[in-house]
């Protein structure tokens, strides 16, 4: 027992080394994989989209742009005020509404509607958009994204969806 000086001692030593290293690796995987899975799990959830009412049709005047607040699509019970989302809602005519994301397409800061200037302006890096969301000045690479809007039973509803992230088009 336990002598390593014969020719089979070498293979015995190799076997024990491999056994120990292999078992340790398996143990690390058993502990690690669930943690990594837990960490990544939000990415594999279905993208939730929920219609949220933001006010009655009559409360928005034609030609005005107003900030509306709604709960995001998947609020967690302990989210508190962080469950809130906002959009800029523009009533274009009797029947049609447009809802713009408040997130600037440059780096996501909240753009502000200036009713007299008829412009959205971003406080971070000076992005400016026209009333239709098209870029007027500054670094934003694309127009303000829009949320889907509909009118149901006299209520304006916005489709609460993920924060729009500006990705780079490659190729």
């Amino acid at each position, binding site marked *: 027992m336990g002598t390593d000086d014969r020719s089979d001692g070498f293979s015995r030593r190799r076997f024990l080394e491999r056994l120990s290293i292999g078992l340790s690796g398996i143990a690390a995987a058993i502990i690690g994989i669930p943690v990594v899975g837990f960490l990544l799990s939000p990415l594999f959830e279905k993208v939730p989209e929920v219609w949220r009412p933001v006010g009655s049709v009559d409360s928005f005047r034609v030609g005005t742009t107003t900030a509306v607040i709604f709960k995001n699509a998947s609020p*967690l019970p302990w*989210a*508190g005020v962080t469950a809130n989302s906002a959009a800029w809602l523009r009533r274009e005519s009797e029947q049609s509404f447009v809802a713009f994301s408040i997130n600037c397409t440059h780096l*996501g*800061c909240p753009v502000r509607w200036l009713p007299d200037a008829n412009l959205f302006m971003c406080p971070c890096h000076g992005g400016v958009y026209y009333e239709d969301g098209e870029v007027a000045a500054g670094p*934003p690479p694309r127009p303000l994204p829009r949320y889907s809007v509909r009118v149901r039973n006299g209520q304006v509803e916005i489709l609460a969806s993920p924060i729009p992230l500006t990705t780079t088009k*490659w190729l």
Partner: protein
Amino acid sequence: MKPLRNIWQWLDDRTGISKTVIPIMRHPVPPNIGWWYVFGSATLIAFIIQIVTGIALALMYVPSASQAYDSLKFITESAPLGHFLRGMHDFGASAMMLLIGIHALRVFVMAAYKYPREVSWLTGVGLLAFTIVMAFTGQLLRWDQNAVWSIVVAAEQAARLPFIGEWLGRFILAGNTVGGATLSRFFALHVFFVPALIYAFVGFHLYLVIRNGISEPPKAGRPVNPKTYRAWYESLLKRYGRPFWPYAAWRDIVFGVSVILIIVILAIIVGPPELGKPPDPSIVEAYPRPDWYFLWIFALFALIPAGLESYFIIFGPILVGVILILLPFIANRGERSPLRRPWAIGIVLIIVLMVGTLWIEGKRVPWSPDFNAKPLPIQVIGATSGPIYRGAQLFHVKGCEFCHAIGDYGGHRGPALTDVGDRLTPDEMTWRILNGGTNMPAFGGNLTPEELNSLVAFLQSRKAL
């Protein structure tokens, strides 16, 4: 005292503490080590302050999206010593960032990363990266409006990466929006994960100092030759080496204690950063700004040409990381003295100038519209009625003043119009206002002909005296 001495002797015999620690404390260091060598230990001292004050704050901080803000408000306003401890943690963070930056520049200028201390440099690069992550995540734990928008900005930056961008952005948000899951992630990162990495890297970094010795102060004309360096260093220590304790340690301690005192004084006098508005993503009145150590990056993103932005966001950090990692392999021999390495001095000067300039610009934010621009007073307008007066009102109301200065009033996004009447004819002004220009919106759809005439009349009246 005898029983105490007996207990110590028993403990020392069973554990070998003095046999391990005393040789380390008294390991020989090269002669003439001056004050330039104190910044590494001072960074460690700042980190220890962060651990102690961080644990103290964690006794009361609630890492929940709905309660973190209120618990921090309570710590700051009501809890005994809470105001002071938050101040310590904040200035400790600033000190750590500042000191690790100076330490890294010192090591670079004196080329202490050369043979055989390449791995000291690499672990140091790791520690620099972890410190930056700690600074960023710590700012987020304040969990006010600024924190929420900082996370969104971080996610947007990550989203610019090719292929995995969208995925990485959602990963940073811990979901599709900022919400309940977001804060807990950053809390775990800030108090468990990254500190654990820092402990491990600091341990390794210090072990390497003992193994390879402190780099001797560089001298022009004495290049590092990997073939002979170790033997030469040994003989240097044999002939001139002095024990670290206390001949070098005293400077570390004098400087380290000064750092602690300065942090304490600032924490008492200045106190912690004010909490912003609550972390409600639906409050659109926001001025997201990073803490001072990231202000220059904030400025960079405003000033680089829009077309190159994605490349900067993606390749900038990668390039910096690759250069830092390759440095000790590209230049692991040769002259160490800054006097013989003009390129190194030039690079440091460029970095300091660039970051300094960007930092000042980040403070001024000339690219941001000034939403708080006050209406022009009568003495600036020079009229109390008529087209010039009405034009001045429109200049404010229509948002012109957010971007254009008149005298001391207004923003700096666009050119100042203090004496625009000398530069442009009425026709040129009309054309520019209606059609916009580089970085100026077109106001054609937003002004009546009468309003336009008043505005032009006002601008024509802006002449140098």
